[in-house]
């Protein structure tokens, strides 16, 4: 320790060994990954006609990542869906599968982040596909998510007096409208956010839950009633969803759906008062309609299997209207697959898509049958 040279050598070596592992080793192991197809053929090769993922990002989005970096968004947002063993990121609906190293190979700056004051953004482009929503959120997050802590960025927008084709209208909690025109920087940033999605599988990582992608791909298979696909043993994700849905259906505590008190545990309803769910043409029919009434409730005259009902279903959930996308997906999947019902599953992605589509609607504003059929057309 007394000889400075030997001492420095020791100091140097102690760091050098770690450097070998974390820098040289890590680089050799996963520093030169290349894009890949979703699955490999039986020889472990990429099939010649397949698309390669991750797809390259557009120039606009690439520039947007610089804005994201410059504004320090990663001090509150991560961009990594953790392994299933490490956390509940997938359950929370932040991704269809955990992120893997290959997902990031096109990014000049990898913005993984290490703090989640805001939600993970690795798949925000799937959750919030709507440009208008993203712009309003960027301008003033509180205009779309009332309690948001996400910082407003009004400096990326120009405010004008008149609404026009180029403006978005932002309403604050005092009900004042403002008309904003996005700057080029705002457009880049929003384009970047939209580009964030890991909605493809990779040979090393498959989807954890069955998602829309798969449903589209295997449309024929899945348009069959989900429970018919394999009567005796349901796929485990479906079994899980049904079990969780049943729990919500039967739960009379915060976070539950309370459905059984009106529609009965048997799903038969009460004659003249509460319509049945078992065999109901609503339940087995259009998913979008089901999702809508699960978010906002239903009132006025309706017809279920030819029988007329005229009653009120407040937005389901305790407190009313509080069911999350995943919960709605689960409870709907459950009612579509019990009491002899069998129809395809509902995913949280479908719920969030519908939710976005109707998000301007005032809270607690229950649907009427007339309104629902008008929207359908």
């Amino acid at each position, binding site marked *: 320790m007394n000889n400075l040279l030997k001492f420095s050598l020791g100091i140097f070596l102690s*760091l050098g060994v770690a450097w070998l592992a974390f820098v040289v080793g890590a680089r050799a192991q996963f520093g030169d990954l290349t894009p890949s197809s979703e699955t490999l053929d039986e020889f472990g090769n990429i099939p010649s006609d397949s698309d390669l993922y991750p797809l390259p990002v557009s120039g606009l989005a690439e520039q947007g990542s610089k804005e994201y970096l410059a504004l320090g968004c990663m001090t509150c947002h991560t961009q990594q869906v953790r392994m299933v063993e490490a956390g509940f990121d997938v359950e929370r609906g932040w991704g269809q599968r955990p992120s893997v190293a290959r997902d990031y190979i096109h990014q000049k700056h990898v913005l993984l982040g290490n703090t989640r004051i805001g939600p993970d953004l690795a798949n925000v482009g799937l959750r919030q596909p709507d440009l208008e929503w993203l712009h309003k959120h960027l301008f003033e997050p509180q205009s779309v998510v009332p309690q948001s802590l996400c910082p407003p*960025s009004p400096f990326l927008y120009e405010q004008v007096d008149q609404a026009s084709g180029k403006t978005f209208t932002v309403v604050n909690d005092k009900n004042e409208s403002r008309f904003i025109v996005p700057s080029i920087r705002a457009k880049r940033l929003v384009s970047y956010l939209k580009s964030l999605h890991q909605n493809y599988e990779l040979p090393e990582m498959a989807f954890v839950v069955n998602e829309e992608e798969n449903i589209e791909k295997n449309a024929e298979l899945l348009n069959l009633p989900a429970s018919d696909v394999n009567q005796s043993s349901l796929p485990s994700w479906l079994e899980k969803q049904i079990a969780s849905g049943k729990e919500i259906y039967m739960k009379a505590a915060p976070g539950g759906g309370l459905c059984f008190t009106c529609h009965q545990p048997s799903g038969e309803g009460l004659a003249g008062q509460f319509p049945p769910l078992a065999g109901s043409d609503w339940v087995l029919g259009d998913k979008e309609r089901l999702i809508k009434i699960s978010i906002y409730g239903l009132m006025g005259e309706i017809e279920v299997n030819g029988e007329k009902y005229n009653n009120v279903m407040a937005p389901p959930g305790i407190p009313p209207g509080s069911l999350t996308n995943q919960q709605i997906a689960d409870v709907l999947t459950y009612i579509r697959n019990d009491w002899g019902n069998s129809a395809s599953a509902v995913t949280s992605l479908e719920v969030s898509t519908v939710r976005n589509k109707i998000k301007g609607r005032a809270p607690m504003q229950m649907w009427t049958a007339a309104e629902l059929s008008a929207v359908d057309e």
Partner: protein
Amino acid sequence: MKQNSEQIIDKSLKLTVCFFVASAGLWLLAAALLAYISAAKLTDPFFLSSFEFLSYGKVKIAQANAFVYGWGGNSIFAVTLWVVARLSQAEARGKVIVLFAGFIWNLAITFGLLGILDGHMTPHEMLEMPAEIWPALFISYSIIAFFIIVTHRSRRNSNTIAPQWFLLSSLLWFPMLFLIAWNGLEINPARGTVQSVLSMWFGQSLIWLWLTPVALGAAYYIIPAILGRAIDKYYLAVFGFWCIALLAPWSVVHHLEGGPVPMWIPAIGTVMSIAMIFPIAVASTNFHSTAFLDISKVWNSLPLRFVIFGTLSYTASSYIGVIFSLPAVAKITQFSIINDFHFNQRVYGFFSMIIFGMVYHILPKITGNEIAKGAKSFHFWTSAFGVLILLLAYLIGGLTHGVLAQQPSLNWASSVISSILPYFQITELAFVVLGFSQLVFVVNVWKAIIPNPFAFFTNDDDATNSEVSA
């Protein structure tokens, strides 16, 4: 004779040490202000929201950099210069050049922070200041380090002791860490998440291998110096030192648990973090069993009170760090505001508190001006109180944050984040308290350096001026 030579050494250091301490103080205030702004933005997102250069992300990052490089860097120079010269019983070398390099260092940080606020930050942890300023930082650092090593080489006694190992290793580790990271991130940038591994490794190692050894070295110096007794079980220190050297570079990457990197990376980090128990135990045995032999003296000496607060905090923070790196716990708290707990615990509760103690020890010796006891004591109590509140809020808030985030059914904004809002309010308050505390520190320091600011401008015979011409 001995008395005399110490005075000569102190005199040779007066200018440079005063410069570094004074600038460190200013950075501390800048960091305090930025810390308050970012904390306030978490309780009210509309606070100053129309100023782009004060966006939360920018302020938060600028704060960390001002704290680590501005306050940390300058105070490391001051403490290392002084302790190394004193232990070598040799006069400091190259003071004009060191002063000049120090000036460049501070100028570069100023530009670096302005760069961050102006939107030019890099994504690399603790290397966020724009790429252009790093060569200046690196060169000025190397110059200062070079002259400290020259002083060390001219020491009278060829045997070295614990404070010297820690201070010199930190001096050498920083440039090595920097070169490795800079090469892998900017010169031949690695692709994909290798980047994140490297940047996270740098960010955490910086605290473990740059700030931590300085504070430990300072504690190894000042505890025996003030108590007038040898470090208890001193023979363990060498073991503790090499344990840190071997384990710390590995133990820092457990933050990637479950992330998009190969599993061995966080796994090694976890194992090594647990092994860190040994060096932590050694340091705390050395410090505390010595200090508790004469606890009343510790209590009565303000510098030592600061230092022991720091070492206790080190022990606590490191054990807590070990617990939070266990995979079962890490998966809950990994992305929560517990990260702010770790940062502030290490950098404020441990490093800064020890530095405060050192500065109060050094300044009177080299300037000959005593610092009022009441002012020091006020600084101690507000700092201790502020830090404890801050850390408790981050700790409890972080646990709440982590546990709620693991409930997939809870809505993010209205359930998870709104339940930690009260903790954000507490941290805001704590930063106000700490801000006042730091203001008192800086006033104490500046008053010791320039007791009569008006005389400084009017009187050409002022000590500081005559130093320059000497």
